[in-house]
């Protein structure tokens, strides 16, 4: 029969000694198997409000913990630790330390929305997963994921120019994620492009890469979009009790 208490030993506390002898006695094996106090001594009532202030998290307060989301979950099927029902509860009751133990898997949600379609209360658990990931990132608990960096590079360009220039997107993405531009697969792709593309198309590619054209009369659209994005970010950061966001001049520099 499995020993329930073993689940309560935190792996981060464990010390393992393959060979340990003290005063001639062999004491090899696991040490520090104490179970820390698991008593919840207060509710952090701000946490639910903060997650609810982020896009997708609006309906988290509706959850009545039936577990339909976790049952339906694609990721849970391969990783039983991925438990939307549980995280929704931790956020609702403000059990922040407990949530942080899972901070590195929350973002694994693949947005299949099976949970959204099965939820009897329209909690929109997929949106809540996004909001929780976003919350963890804004609070500085998790670094920006490469996917997030890519999204930013991509949307910064669109906002600035109304157009995408692929070469620029790739260069900036590699630069921001600290990856080398001279990658074998990229060099090979460039070689083949040069070899096989019609000369006219190549010329246009080169032209775009060189001067990065923008959509005609884009400046007013850009101003409107920037204003909206800035207001949204400011609202989110203030809901989370964080400082004002960086100015667009620094974040969009050279996009």
């Amino acid at each position, binding site marked *: 029969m499995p020993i329930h208490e073993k689940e309560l030993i935190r792996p981060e506390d464990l010390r393992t000694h393959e060979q340990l002898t003290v005063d001639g006695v062999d004491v090899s094996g696991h040490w520090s198997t104490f179970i820390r106090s*698991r008593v*919840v001594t207060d*509710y952090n009532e701000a946490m639910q409000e903060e997650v609810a202030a982020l896009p997708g998290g609006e309906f988290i307060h509706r959850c*009545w*913990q039936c577990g339909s989301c976790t049952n339906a979950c694609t990721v849970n099927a391969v990783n039983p630790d991925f438990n939307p029902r*549980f995280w929704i509860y*931790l956020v609702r*009751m403000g*059990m922040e330390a407990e949530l942080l133990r899972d901070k590195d898997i929350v973002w694994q949600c693949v947005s299949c929305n099976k949970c959204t379609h099965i939820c009897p209360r329209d909690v929109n658990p997929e949106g809540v997963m996004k909001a929780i990931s976003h919350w963890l990132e804004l609070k500085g608990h998790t670094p920006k994921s490469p996917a997030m960096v890519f999204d930013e590079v991509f949307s910064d360009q669109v906002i600035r120019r109304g157009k995408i220039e692929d070469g620029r997107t790739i260069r900036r993405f590699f630069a921001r994620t600290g990856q080398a531009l001279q990658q074998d697969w990229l060099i090979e792709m460039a070689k083949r492009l040069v070899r096989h593309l019609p000369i006219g198309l190549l010329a246009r590619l080169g032209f775009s890469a060189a001067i990065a054209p923008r959509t005609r009369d884009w400046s007013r659209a850009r101003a409107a979009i920037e204003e909206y994005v800035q207001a949204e970010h400011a609202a989110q950061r203030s809901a989370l009790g964080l400082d004002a966001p960086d100015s667009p001049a620094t974040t969009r520099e050279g996009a």
Partner: protein
Amino acid sequence: MNDSILIVGGGPAGLAAAHALARVGRHSVLIDKAERLGGAPILSGYAKLVPSGEWAKDAIGGMVERVRGDSLVEVHTGATVRSFDGSPGDFTAQLSDGATVRAGAAILATGFTHFDSLNKPEWGFGTFPDVVTTTQVEQMISSGRGVRCPSDGRKPQRVAILLCVGSRDRQIGREWCSKICCTVSANLAMEIREELPDCHVYIYYMDIRTFGLYETKYYWRSQEEFKIKYIKARIAEVTSDGTKLIVKGEDTLVKRPVTIPFDLVVHAIGMDPNLDNKTIASTFGVELEPHGYLARRNTYGNMAETTRAGVFVAGAATGPETIDDSIGQGHAAALSALGSLGAAKATA
């Protein structure tokens, strides 16, 4: 042969029965041991009723007015029945105020008694002034004083409502579900949030039984509109750290113990059988069912029969009951009593 009907108890069920009989031109004698008519909703000062949202003093007070102004209803308050003899069609009751009542049938609408929280000392009632009952919160609201901590009159920042206090508890011989406390608690939680929007309200439950259509209006609405938090935990004990109440239990959904500070703890008290039920049973010669409520002879065939012919029962005297169902049962008992008089007449 006597055509009058004796009604014992002037709460919602008794008032409904008296009114129904008057509507068909039948004389009744309505007696209540309290000095006022209205039963628990009036005597205990309930606030807004489930499910209409009307104030008890208007809704039930209106029923009292209607009966008080009816010449076909003879009212005796501050009176109990000392003895009850005879047979269907011809009963005689001696009242404690010296009056003698002759009646062809009787309706027992003797109601219930609120659970006394002193019987669950581990939950702090009677030890800590800021542990109160749902009835007290009803009174805070209905009196217009608002929900405050009795110890110092401050507005609570965080309130815990403990469900099933005096219900579903074999330790204290109360196995029944009191039926209304979940809905009443959700209703009160919303009223607290309405008056004190900065106050957080938590409901500690074993199951939520906001049955039927109350699901939408109370359980869902309390969460979706009022952000009441429901926590599946039966609280082990309520103590104090000197400034706040400390609620201890196990949050069963995360399998973790909780010791959470609260300003105000509310017991959602259940419905006990009327304390007088043994006296009532012996005076009227009717039987009690195993929990101590008045037994009904028949579930489907004839409504409201007790184990004694010509004596009927309605409302929370038969078990935990809602106000609107008690009123319906009062009407059913009135009709059954009328029918029994017809039958008695035919055999006379």
